[in-house]
């Protein structure tokens, strides 16, 4: 991005060199092309356009479930789009190429500009042009209060101009902040990019569901996450050790069903400290030394106690997941793969495994069908379950969802339905083989995101300087003024007092410059009425 200001002086044209190496010439020309404003603008627009598919198509980094769904819905198109990175736009080669080129162009622009600006800062304001009356602003002051160059310089310095006196001439310049701000803004952009890079290299995050109760405590290891993503420079062994136990979860709802407050209470066990209790909520994460814990969602995990025909009991408190219904209808499964193991022989009958799936309604309606909750809080909880017995298919080694039964086993008849029932808390359901299922109650669960994001301080600081620089570059204005003191000419009508001529040049668009110049002239002439304005400005 080339400079927008006109340069103080055009450098003397270099003598054309004979015999330029064609490779060097090509490189130099490409570099000039890349760092030109035109290219930078085109790259900016490419960046904007390239971001659009990232909002139209689901992105793996944002919502992997939707990407899977998109693949199911568009089986032909999806793999082809996937090949060109359309489901990971912001990490794709072409998106990266655009911003890498843009930032290269940026660096290629700010380096020479910084050099020029440092030079300009160290240079004295340039000498006055010969004919001040040709400048956009011009005035002649007769018998001003400040009639010698030093006095005029003092007036200017008081108004925070950078001033230099050369003989009978005063040169002053102001508004260096514009270029300083501009450079600060663009440098901050690079720092922002670095902050993002550090965060993605050294950061990690994982999501998981945490059900209340000490037996469900979570400790920070890779295996404990349902879904985790470590940066390229992070190893599983680098995850800091700490443990969380959900003690309590409170949710308040309005009568309309809209949530008004969430509050999770956990006990935290960090190395080198005694376990402590901490609370957190949406908008107010739990900030540990090594990571932050964010509350993303919540729900209920039904506690189901199954007693098989041998009288052995097992309890499941697997969370039921929200279906997306604002009234918190949840669906899920309770599986008992170790049911009906003969206690005498200890042998497992693979076709005698038991599982239940169905819906949990925190507030069930008055009559069937019990398929949707009426309110998100537990006002009239009910569990609408279907029982299955047979082979759950867990030993086949095919990975499946833990929140669903393997439908293939049902379809091929290896897992059979053995009844359905609506259960209220405390109720017990006796199945056809005499085994029982007791709905003990529910435990709350929370969905957590646990994250470590280094580079965020850098991001914050860089954003601050970016904003400061932006304001400097937009609102500061570079301008110059000159004053020339002429010694009193013999026979002058002013009776021997000196004559001061002033000229002003706004170097960037500055609609208020005429006023500022007039005020400056008035200050130098001591507010005297003798000033003559030879020419008005562009206003």
């Amino acid at each position, binding site marked *: 991005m080339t400079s927008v200001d006109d340069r103080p002086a055009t450098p003397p044209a270099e003598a054309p060199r004979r015999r330029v190496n064609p490779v060097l010439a090509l490189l130099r020309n490409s570099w000039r092309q890349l760092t030109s404003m035109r290219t930078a603008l085109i790259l900016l627009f490419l960046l904007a356009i390239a971001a*659009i598919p990232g909002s139209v198509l689901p992105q793996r980094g944002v919502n992997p479930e939707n990407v899977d769904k998109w693949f199911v819905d568009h089986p032909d198109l999806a793999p082809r789009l996937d090949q060109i990175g359309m489901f990971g736009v912001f990490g794709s080669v072409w998106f990266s190429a655009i911003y890498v080129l843009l930032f290269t162009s940026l660096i290629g622009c700010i380096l020479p500009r910084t050099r020029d600006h440092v030079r300009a800062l160290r240079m004295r304001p340039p000498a006055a042009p010969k004919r001040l009356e040709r400048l956009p602003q011009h005035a002649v002051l007769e018998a001003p209060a400040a009639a010698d160059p030093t006095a005029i310089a003092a007036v200017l310095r008081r108004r925070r101009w950078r001033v230099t006196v050369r003989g009978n001439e005063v040169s002053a310049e102001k508004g260096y902040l514009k270029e300083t701000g501009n450079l600060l803004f663009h440098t901050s952009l690079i720092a922002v990019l670095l902050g993002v890079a550090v965060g993605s290299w050294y950061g990690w*995050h994982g999501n998981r569901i945490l059900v209340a109760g000490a037996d469900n405590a979570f400790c920070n290891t890779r295996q404990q996450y349902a879904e985790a993503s470590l940066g390229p420079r992070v190893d599983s062994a680098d995850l800091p050790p700490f443990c969380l136990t959900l003690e309590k979860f409170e949710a308040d709802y309005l009568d309309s069903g809209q949530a008004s407050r969430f509050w999770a209470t956990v006990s935290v066990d960090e190395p080198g400290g005694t376990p402590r209790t901490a609370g957190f909520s*949406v908008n107010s994460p739990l900030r540990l030394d090594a990571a932050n814990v*964010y509350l993303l969602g919540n729900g209920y995990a039904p506690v189901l106690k199954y007693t098989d025909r041998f009288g052995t009991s097992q309890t499941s408190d697997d969370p039921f997941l929200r279906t997306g219904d604002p009234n918190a209808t949840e669906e899920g499964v309770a599986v008992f793969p170790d049911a009906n193991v003969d206690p005498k022989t200890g042998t497992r009958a693979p076709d005698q495994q038991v599982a239940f799936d169905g819906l949990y309604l925190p507030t069930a309606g008055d009559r069937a069908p019990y398929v949707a909750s009426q309110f998100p809080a537990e006002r009239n909880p009910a569990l609408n379950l279907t029982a299955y017995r047979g082979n759950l298919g867990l030993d086949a080694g095919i990975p499946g969802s833990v929140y669903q039964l393997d439908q293939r086993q049902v379809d091929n008849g290896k897992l059979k339905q053995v009844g359905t029932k609506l259960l209220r808390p405390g109720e017990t359901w006796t199945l056809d083989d005499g085994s029982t299922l007791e709905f003990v109650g529910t435990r709350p669960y929370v969905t957590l995101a646990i994250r470590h994001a280094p580079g*965020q301080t850098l991001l914050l600081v860089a954003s601050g300087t970016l*904003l400061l620089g932006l304001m400097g570059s937009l609102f500061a204005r570079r301008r110059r003024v000159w004053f020339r003191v002429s010694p009193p000419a013999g026979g002058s009508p002013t009776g021997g007092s000196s004559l001061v001529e002033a000229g002003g040049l706004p170097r960037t668009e500055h609609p208020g410059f005429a006023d500022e110049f007039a005020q400056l002239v008035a200050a130098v002439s001591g507010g005297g009425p003798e000033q003559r304005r030879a020419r008005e400005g562009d206003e």
Partner: protein
Amino acid sequence: MSALSDQLVTFAILTYLIAMISHAVEFALGNARKVAVATPARELVGAGVGSTGGTVDEPVAPVAPPRPDRSAARAALAGRIAAWLTALAAALHLGAVVTRGIAAERMPWGNMYEFVLTVTWIGVAAWLVVLWKQPSLRRLGLFLTLVMVLLLAFAELKLYVQVVPLMPALQSYWFIIHVSTIIFASGIFLLGVVPAAAYLMRAGWEQGRRSFPYTLARRLPAAAGLERLTFTTHAFAFPIFTFAVIAGAIWAEAAWGRAWGWDPKETWAFISWVVYAGYLHARATPSVKRNVATWIAVVGFLTMLMNLFGVNFFFTGLHSYAGVN
């Protein structure tokens, strides 16, 4: 209180509509500038339209026909009435926003309806400031009131929702910081697109184009003034928008665990930011023509519209507070 707010919105829309008609009358009655020199009643016209820089010096036939004379005075009167009506409508509009906030017992920015209601008010308030400082731009009011009527009517008909308290995700002081600055910047961008579009038409007219959209610009203020207003509004709004996006990132860190996650709303904010940055760069580069730069500003506004309507209606993301689904 909520019902009062709804009634005030309706009255505001009606008043904007009458102001728009009044501006249309001003347009229809002719170009007052040419008469400004010829008419003895110079003060009257000068107060309204005559102060456009430089036009007073235009050589004009010394004998002006008397009829345009009178219609020019009438046009100026219609324009002044329109400006006062706009101010009245803005007062009603403000009343609607405030009563909505009182009814909800919170800042009235909790859903898309309230968002549009406040953004349009910022736009019109900023317009009144511009009008105060540069009365010569008054004829732009026709387009501005048109935008107001369209947006407010759309909000009233399609986006309206009952007053409800904020959901927990929005209960944070960052809500006030992030949303108020987004609203402020959007309002100024909304105002900025009016002179941008007017400039594109007027510049075409001044270059001698006489086909349809350009003919609308025959009685608009001079292109240079429109262009300057376009730049001023965008240069003013851009840092505020930048701040709002940064504030949003800080809030997102606390609420969602990441400062930036390419949620559709964030993606489009990024696109808008890049396009507006492109406008400011293009505007500052002498080799880029002014109308090219202004087109970029218009595209920037289209991306803002896309972010508000397109993202809220068509995409699902974390910013699902519109209350229209």
